[in-house]
C-alpha cells in the first residue's frame, strides 16, 4: 500500500507534533500491547513488564526513535530500516502478526494524546505508515 504525497505530509506533520514524546509513546504503546494482547509478552521473558518498568521505557525509546527515523525517510524505508529488518529476521524473529498489534497500540496512544490532530485522514496515513514499516521489518523473514 503506497504512501501518497498527502499521506507523507500527514505523517511528517504528526511526527512534528509528537516531537520529543516519541520515546514515551513507544513505552506506552508497549504497555498497552502487553496488557491488551498478553501473547506478545512471550517475546520478553527477560523483561520486567510491570507498570513503569525501566526496561519497557528503554525499549519504548528504541521503538519511538526508529519510527521517528522512518518518518524522516519515507521515500526509502527499506534502506533506512535495513539493519532493523535484518535484526527482526535473523535474531528476533517476532511473528509477523505481532506488528499489527503494536501498530494498533501505537495508534491508540497517539489518538489518546492528540485528540485535535488525530483526524480520520491522519489516522489513515499513520495506519498505512505503520503497515509499511511492519512490511519492511518482516521483508527478510523468508
Amino acid at each position, binding site marked *: 500500500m503506497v504512501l501518497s504525497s498527502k499521506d507523507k505530509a500527514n505523517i511528517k506533520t504528526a511526527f512534528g507534533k509528537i516531537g520529543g514524546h516519541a520515546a514515551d509513546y513507544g513505552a506506552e504503546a508497549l504497555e498497552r500491547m502487553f496488557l491488551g494482547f498478553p501473547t506478545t509478552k512471550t517475546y520478553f521473558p527477560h523483561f520486567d513488564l510491570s507498570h513503569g518498568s525501566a526496561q519497557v521505557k528503554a525499549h519504548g525509546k528504541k521503538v519511538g526513535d526508529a519510527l521517528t527515523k522512518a518518518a524522516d525517510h519515507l521515500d526509502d524505508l527499506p534502506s533506512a530500516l535495513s539493519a532493523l529488518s535484518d535484526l527482526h529476521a535473523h535474531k528476533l524473529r517476532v511473528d509477523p502478526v505481532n506488528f499489527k498489534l503494536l501498530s494498533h497500540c501505537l495508534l491508540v*496512544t497517539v*489518538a489518546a494524546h492528540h485528540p485535535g490532530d*488525530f483526524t480520520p485522514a491522519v489516522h489513515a496515513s499513520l*495506519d498505512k505508515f505503520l503497515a509499511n514499516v511492519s512490511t519492511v521489518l518482516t521483508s527478510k523473514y523468508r
Partner: protein
Amino acid sequence: MVHFTAEEKAAIASLWAKVNVEVARGESLGRLLVVYPWTQRFFDNFGNLYSESAIIGNPKVQAHGEKVLTSFGNAVKHMEDFKGTFAKLSELHCDKLHVDPENFRLLGNVLVVVLAHHFGKEFTPDLQAAYQKVVAGAANALAHKYH
C-alpha cells in the same frame, strides 16, 4: 467464552455510559470506511463516499453507525453471553450481508481507537485491555454462526 472480572465489567460499563452515541455514531463506521477503504464494498448504496468529509458526514453512514453502536451497547449489557446476544446478527451478516468476519475485527479495533481519541488519558492501558476483550468477544460472536 470471554471472562471478565467484576472490576473489568464495572469499568467497561462505566466508560460506555459516557459514550455520546450521537457523536460517536458516525465516527467508528466512518473511520473504518476512511482508514480501510475496501470496507466500502458493503455500502454501495450509501451514496457519496468520495472523500473523508463526505464519508464522516454521510447521513446513511451516521445512521448505520448508530445501529452498530447501539448493538454494541447491548453487548456491553450482556457480557456473559456475547454468542447469544449476537446470534441473529451473526446469521444476518453471513446469510444476507455476506460480510467477511475480518471486518468485525477491523471495526472493533477502530472502535478502540475512537474511544482512546474521545477519552484520552482516561482510556488507560487497563481499560483498553478490557475493551480489547469486548471487541474480540463481539467479533467472535458475530462470526460464530457462519457456515
